[in-house]
């Protein structure tokens, strides 16, 4: 039984309505109790394998499937999904779309209730799981007020509540910060100790490298490389890079930045730059009917408190800090989306207040789907211009390499292309201060490099780029400065070591 616990044999698969096959005669066997990592570029078939094992293919996502998939003695094609519920559990990438309940308690008991367990037994099991995962603090709360990391903890707990023997994780760390990834790692380690069979599809590799027994590298629907855990952990940097994987280790300096350990770094003084003045904001004081209150420096409970900060002009500045520490608030306040924040931006001798800030700032949101409104890429860019100028529009599209899509509907593009469309409209709007909210979450290394290159070239064209990120790799790739935010305050702003030399 322990050998070949999961058996995938000669599988070909393509989604309904697509002519491109996603898996190409793939065979894979996984033993009971094994911890396996699937990696490889986006679209290489990692998610498809996850969906094969949990039965979403072929039961939910339909398509042409050839070959056989066998998990813990169940023939997936012939087994109904609900029969698999107690056998295979899946933690998905996006915490916001995997909850069925609106409260944490309801979410954890949701699975056991579905399979018709006795109420008393469910309550006991919930107690056990909550104690085991140390999430007592999260009980009895609304899921909508939790941070990304907390949501992911609840997702793990609710999967564990069904006591599945096989646990699948599909890019679980995409939206998490360093601390939350640490917790996730602990959870996976505990599952491993309990003898669960674990399969993780992931781009971020550093947190898993000591944990996995086997690593599978996929390319175009095939298994290209296979390493044991030890081989993988000792792989050298050049090889990792040549396979377009994200680094296995983060350079020490940056990892201490992200862990938020040392605090004696001084903020560098910058004489010529963009100055932010009097940025104060709080989420806690919401008046009931009409809101009219100016936040001041010595107010209590401020979510953002930046009396004065000078940002170096025409550089890429990485904004870091834990989840929920105020990075997104900072970006939203800077570009003037939080109306109650009355900060002033001083750039090139001019002051921008209130709504004027929206004119020189442009934020590319984490979910770019929210900011694409029109029915073609061209119209999208023209919409941002005060006066429609087709020639300039084409130039911008050309510069970003998306001119060929000008007639396409933005929603028909891939994630990376959509991001470029959003950037194109930022350029068209003449924004000098461009803000990016986690542009690389869930991207593979190749795409991350592209985003990094793009940010650099934006800075080279006299834009100042602020990028909030949890990816040390991205900072290493493109940032000149790091701005660390903690509890809504600037902890420090410093130059990234070696950034200058690399440039020269």
């Amino acid at each position, binding site marked *: 039984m322990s050998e070949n616990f999961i058996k995938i044999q000669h599988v070909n698969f393509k989604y309904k309505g697509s002519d491109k096959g996603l898996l190409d005669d793939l065979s894979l066997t996984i033993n009971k109790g094994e911890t396996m990592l699937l990696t490889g570029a986006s679209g290489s078939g990692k998610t498809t394998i996850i969906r094969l094992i949990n039965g979403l293919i072929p039961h939910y996502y339909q398509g042409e499937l050839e070959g056989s998939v066998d998990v813990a003695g169940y023939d997936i094609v012939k087994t109904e*999904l609900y029969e698999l519920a107690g056998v295979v559990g899946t933690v*998905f990438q996006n915490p*916001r779309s995997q909850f*069925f309940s609106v409260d944490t308690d309801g979410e954890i008991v949701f699975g056991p209730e579905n399979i018709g367990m006795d109420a008393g037994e469910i309550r006991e099991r919930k107690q056990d799981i909550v104690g085991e995962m140390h999430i007592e603090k999260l009980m009895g709360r609304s899921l909508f007020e939790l941070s990304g990391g907390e949501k992911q903890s609840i997702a793990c707990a609710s999967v564990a509540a069904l006591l599945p023997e096989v646990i699948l994780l599909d890019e679980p760390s995409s939206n998490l910060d360093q601390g939350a990834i640490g917790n996730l790692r602990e959870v996976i380690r505990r599952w491993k100790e309990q003898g669960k069979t674990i399969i993780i599809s992931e781009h971020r590799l550093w947190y898993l490298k000591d944990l996995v027994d086997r690593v599978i590298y996929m390319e175009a629907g095939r298994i290209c490389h296979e390493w044991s855990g030890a081989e993988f952990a000792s792989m050298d940097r050049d090889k990792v890079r040549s396979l377009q994987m994200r680094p296995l280790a983060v350079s020490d300096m940056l990892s201490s930045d992200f862990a938020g350990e040392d605090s004696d770094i001084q903020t560098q003084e910058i004489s010529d730059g963009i100055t932010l003045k009097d940025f104060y904001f709080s989420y806690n004081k919401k008046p009931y009917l009409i809101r009219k209150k100016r936040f001041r420096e010595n107010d209590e409970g401020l979510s953002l408190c930046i009396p004065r900060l000078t940002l170096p002009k025409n550089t890429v500045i990485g904004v870091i800090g834990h989840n929920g520490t105020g990075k997104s608030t900072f970006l939203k306040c800077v*570009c003037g989306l939080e109306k109650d924040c009355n900060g002033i931006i001083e750039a090139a001798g001019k002051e921008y207040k209130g709504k004027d800030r929206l004119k020189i700032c442009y934020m590319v949101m984490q979910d770019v789907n929210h900011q694409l*409104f029109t029915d073609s890429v061209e119209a999208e860019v023209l919409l941002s211009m005060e006066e429609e100028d087709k020639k300039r529009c084409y130039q911008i599209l050309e510069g970003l390499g998306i001119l060929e899509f000008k007639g396409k509907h933005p929603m028909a593009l891939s994630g990376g292309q959509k991001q470029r469309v959003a950037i194109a409209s930022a350029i068209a709007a003449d924004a000098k201060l461009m803000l990016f909210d986690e542009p690389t979450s869930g991207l593979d290394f190749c795409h991350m490099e592209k985003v990094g290159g793009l940010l650099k070239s934006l800075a080279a064209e006299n834009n100042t780029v602020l990028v909030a990120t949890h990816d040390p790799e991205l900072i290493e790739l493109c940032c000149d400065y790091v701005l660390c935010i903690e509890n809504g305050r600037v902890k420090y702003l410093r130059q990234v070591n070696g950034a200058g030399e690399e440039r020269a």
Partner: protein
Amino acid sequence: MSAKLDPRTKLYMILIVSAVVMMSATTPLLWVVRIAMTLIPLILLVAEKRYASALRFTILYAIALVLTFCFLSEESTGILQSLLIGYCGIAVQFLPALITAWYVVRTTKIDEFMSAMQRMHVPDGIAISLAVVMRFFPTIKEEYASITDAMRMRGISFGGGRPSKMVEYRMIPLLFSCVNIGDELSAAAITRGLGGKVKRTSVEELRLRVSDWILILGFTAAASVFVIFKYVL
């Protein structure tokens, strides 16, 4: 006596209030009944510590009532008056249903709701769809907020000079993200056994308490008063 009500009582309240808002109040007695029916969900909102929404609804409703009774009559003319009649007519007539629905959606856990539906022998298909709708309200709110932000950033909150585009720009991204989220959500729920043949259990114990019975009786009485005074007498 705890303020927590059984979801079945809440559904019954929605049903009765919706029926009553469809019948216009013509005599002082009917007005009193209707206002009393509106006050109940308001009080319940306060009991659930939803002060902000309770206050907002109370003020909206009070303004509409005061305007209707003090400033407007059948002889009112003029643009201002006709606009006010429009607003007050809708607010006075339908706000009670809105407040009740708000209260129910905000205070019912999905889990409770599902088991209430099961107790009432509602088919799973309907119960699950309704549960998903409830689950979706906060999501739509979140998505809508970020789309509004994005529109302000582009300076197209009012359609960028073309008012006809105002709705289009808002709805298209909203629909796209709701469809995506819905799709992922169902996939996640199915892998955790939703929709199986086994009878679903629930950790929430449903019991009709004294408070439930009082409300059920009260609302039934109110509905009867309306029906009797309007259609029988």
